[in-house]
């Protein structure tokens, strides 16, 4: 098999890999904001429950979580998810937990004087968060989100283990058919993941530069 043929086969998995990353990325983002805001909530019980969620997902294996959602949930509760949904939910919850730490950290990094000025102007709690704190915290969050999205892209390879036909799955297939291809197939696979990650790498470098200069801390 020529390199071109291998690339051709593996390319059929690009759509799955990329769409899995995008959809679970969006879920992770939503989860990150909900959980991140809950972590700084005034309600102790909300903070506690969110902390349990975050630490649980950070502290256990992503692969085991994936197997739970794909293989165990159907047996226990009769909830059957197709592999793509299972992948999206696992990756979204897992990376959402990581990203919520970024949201929380960035919110806490906004100087307290900002909140106090907003109180002195009689803004409500929600207004303080929405108009004053979050817009400033967002700048600090972006580079972190960039890094996490790269991690997420790489983690999508795990879904090949629940029969989803992404790039990794197709590579495994090729190798299973002809062991002598291992080096070539996985060499090409590395390069293809890197090419997909490249825009994300460039973007997060740019965001890092932007966050470290200017407007933020006056």
């Amino acid at each position, binding site marked *: 098999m020529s390199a071109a043929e291998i690339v051709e086969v593996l390319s059929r998995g690009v759509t799955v890999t990329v769409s899995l990353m995008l959809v679970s990325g969006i879920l992770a983002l939503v989860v990150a904001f909900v959980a991140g805001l809950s972590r700084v909530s005034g309600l102790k019980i909300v903070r506690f429950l969110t902390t349990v969620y975050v630490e649980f997902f950070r502290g256990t294996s992503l692969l085991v979580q994936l197997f739970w959602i794909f293989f165990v949930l159907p047996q226990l509760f009769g909830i059957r998810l197709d592999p793509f949904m299972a992948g999206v939910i696992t990756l979204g919850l897992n990376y959402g937990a990581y990203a919520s730490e970024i949201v929380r950290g960035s919110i806490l990094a906004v100087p307290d*004087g900002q909140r106090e*000025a907003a109180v*002195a102007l*009689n803004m409500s709690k929600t207004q303080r968060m929405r108009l*004053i704190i979050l817009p*400033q915290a967002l700048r600090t969050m972006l580079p972190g989100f960039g890094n996490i999205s790269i991690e997420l892209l790489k983690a999508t390879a795990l879904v090949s283990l629940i029969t989803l036909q992404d790039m990794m799955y197709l590579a495994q297939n090729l190798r299973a058919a002809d062991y002598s291809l291992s080096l070539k197939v996985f060499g090409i696979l590395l390069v293809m993941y890197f090419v997909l990650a490249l825009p994300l790498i460039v973007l997060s470098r740019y965001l890092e530069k932007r966050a470290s200069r200017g407007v*933020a801390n*006056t």
Partner: protein
Amino acid sequence: MTGKPIVQFQNVKKSFDELEVLKGFDLDIMPGEKVSIIGPSGSGKTTIIRMLMTLEKPTDGEIIVDGQNLWHMESNGKWVEANEKHLSKIRGNIGMVFQHFNLFPHMTILRNCTEAPVHVLGLNKKEAEQRAKQMLAKVGLAEKEKNYPFQLSGGQKQRVAIARALVMQPKVMLFDEVTSALDPELVGEVLRVIKDLAEQGDMTMILITHEMDFAMEISDRVVFFADGYLTEEGPPEELFNNPKSDRLKSFLQRFSKV
């Protein structure tokens, strides 16, 4: 000045863990009055006005604003701790200017001054901008409205902070050492703005300051706070030229030496 006080501190106490900062503070302030609070560093002056701004909660005692209890409210015939809604209702009477300006860095100067009027007072954008521009002109910064805070000098930032508070039209304005973070050559422009404001009359002003000349010039009354209590008070001339307590004498002496 007659009538009822606009601000009353009644036996207010405040501790941070073991540290007892206010041990029983009493002070009545009349509408329109300009009161300066002086005292040693770390004595608790900032804490006094932060409690009035609802940024810090008293450990004990009452603060009354315009006849209403700030930190307590009546609920089903019982006195209970104030909730956010109650605090917010009374907080609207009060504005504050901070030592470190605390402008919003992500907004233009104009937006800094219109954000609260639009979202808190419910003014429409045009009304809010009109008010904001008027106040910015008053502090001499009309031409800076499109700039961002980082493009301004410290003195300009502090004048914007004053305009931002004024746009809300509070009855009582609090100033916490608003010139002490400024380079000496920028102090004058800020003090001038405050002096203008004081001379216009009807706003009640409470100022914490280390500028004794300035306190002398604009205050109706000066309050000396030390060791957890209001130690001495009176008209500025009397207090500065004829201090009674030893504590104030030594405080003023130390000041005139520098």
